[in-house]
């Protein structure tokens, strides 16, 4: 009994800081934002108290931002996956052990310059004096790359590739080499071995990588802002715009609440589909 009591005091003590954080930095701000989302924009911008559903009714005015986000995020995730998978496979299965660590580290190193600077480099590479000038030498004139969906996809894949390579590498690395040999010995073609043994076993890594990239893309702001020329708006851009230009806090709040709901619903569905149940949750967040 006393032991138990002591234990529960300890639990409370250990959880107090975290609880405070969740309360003051997550729950209360969320409540404030929900309250704001029912308010109105004041005459000069900002917020005035009110109770109206106008902000939510106005959401269709940002329809394109929703559809952009919901197409670029899954497609960008998929592109990152198909580009990252062969590399992860190569690193985990084919490369000589001595080189493996070095090559792996080389995948993360680009991460250590600011995302902003790396994205900026692409403005130059894809801009008029970059690749299009090179293409002119081989006779392809008038190709524009910067400020197009293509540029945004390049930025996405470049920005998030390492996040995809890592989890896949980890799951492939754990893979038992004997299984592959057994499959080969049994006369399986390399393709069949891959489809029936390697791919299924690497699914947890694929699921984790996809979720990480997808979550980050849903709130992306910088890549479309820099490589989309201010023309391709994600929800993140629409949100920033409402706070730093239009000063429409209530509508911004409504948009933020909606984005959170979309995120929670899609990510929960995704986890249920790929990993199934509660057990999967912790794994997938790794």
């Amino acid at each position, binding site marked *: 009994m006393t032991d138990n009591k002591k234990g529960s005091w300890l639990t409370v003590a250990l959880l107090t800081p975290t609880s405070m954080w969740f309360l003051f930095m997550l729950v209360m701000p969320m409540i404030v934002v929900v309250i704001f989302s029912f308010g109105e*924009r004041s*005459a*000069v*911008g*900002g917020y005035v108290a009110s109770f109206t559903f106008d902000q939510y009714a106005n959401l269709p*005015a*940002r329809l*394109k*931002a929703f559809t952009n986000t919901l197409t670029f995020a899954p497609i960008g995730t998929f592109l990152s996956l198909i580009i990252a998978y062969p590399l992860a496979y190569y690193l985990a299965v084919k490369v000589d052990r001595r080189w493996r660590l070095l090559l792996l580290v080389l995948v993360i190193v680009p991460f250590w310059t600011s995302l902003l600077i790396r994205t900026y480099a692409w403005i130059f590479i894809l*801009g*008029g*004096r970059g690749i299009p000038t090179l293409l002119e030498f081989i006779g392809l004139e008038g190709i*524009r790359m*910067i*400020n197009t969906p293509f540029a945004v996809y390049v930025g996405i894949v470049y920005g998030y590739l390492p996040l995809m390579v890592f989890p896949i590498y980890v799951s492939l690395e754990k893979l038992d080499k004997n299984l592959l040999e057994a499959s080969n010995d049994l006369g399986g073609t390399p393709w069949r071995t891959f489809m029936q043994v390697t791919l299924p076993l690497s699914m947890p890594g694929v699921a984790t990588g996809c979720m990480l990239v997808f979550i980050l893309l849903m709130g992306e702001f910088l890549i479309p802002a820099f490589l989309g*020329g*201010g*023309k391709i*708006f994600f929800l993140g*851009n*629409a949100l920033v*715009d*409402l*706070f*730093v*230009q*239009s*000063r*429409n806090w209530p509508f911004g709040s409504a948009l933020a609440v909606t984005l959170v709901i979309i995120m929670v619903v899609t990510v929960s569905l995704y986890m249920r589909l790929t990993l199934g149940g509660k057990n999967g949750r912790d794994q997938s967040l790794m």
Partner: protein
Amino acid sequence: MSKSYKDNMPITAKKFMEEFRRYEKGSVSRRHFMGVTGLGTAAAVLGSAMPSMMPKSAKAGSLGDRLIFSTWPNYHNPVNVENFTNDTGVNIQINAFGSNEEMLAKLQAGATGWDVFVPTNYTISNYVDLDLIQELDLSRIPNHDPSSQNPMFADPATVNGKVYAVLKNWGTTGIVYNSKNLKNGPTSWKDFFDLTMGEGSGHTIVHDYQLTTIGAALCANGHSFNSVDAGELEMAEKLLIESKPHLFAITSDYQPGMRSGDAWMSICWNGDGLQLNKDLPEMKYTLASDGGEIWSDFYCIPKDAPHVDAAYAFINYLLDPKVQVLEFESHGYATGDTRVEALLPAETADNEILFPAAKLMNGLEFGAANTLTDPIRAEVIARFKSA
């Protein structure tokens, strides 16, 4: 700023060569003056050549060592900023903004840390109403001479009989286009949008700024640049959204896109037009026959500016006529200050980009105070961008 494209580029038009030499004379005499007064040419030269050789403490004066300055792109001469730092030990952090609304949003959220910023005429009465800027103590800005100011541009500085701002520059909002790509350039906002959706598709830049971008579309439809009429704004929004697939970018920093050749046409402020034209003669600046903006920009000090002494010193320094000449040399905007105009070469007065013909000037409007906070205009530009 930091985009004095002249620094490393050959000057193309002969006329500009001559102007340039005269400006340089101004610069030389200023250095000379500094040498005589003991501030030292050596310090300035050393400082700009080897900034790391200048220990902060050796220069630091009573003004502190920092100042945060919010302004617009391509709007300052880096040499002036460096000289101020060398003279006073005050380092300047420059933030560039693309719209007055963005500046207002920052100030409304509070705690900006700004010491000086550059708002446009139509915003000042709003800032005073919102209690966001300080009344200025003109005795601390001896280089400001009210009698030399053109009242047409300087008047918005005074609200309810109190002075809250001092005039920086004035200019017009028109169109810049690359005449190599567009043989028949636009002469009106209507042309601007027609070319965007026709011959020049994919190569137009509009500002990320409600006043000029919505204003341009309003003028193209034959309405006032400043309209807040719901029906007229709806038509403007329709035109903007229709043209959006044909745009190269939505940004108020349009010089890089124009210079790289990606963009052929942009909404443009006249000094930027002059900068572009000076380096690349195929860049033409024109006012639109169906309207546009005439504006003046000011220096203001926010209410909660942390370094007020440095702010006054910096504004005073920038208003020194000789410094203003150097500024003009870099950004190409007229001053509305007769003392500065007297120092400029005679041909400047004939420059059509700087001083447009009266016929075209008459069609221009000053931005109206209510456009800054108008909810419909704010939402129209936001919908256009996210469309």
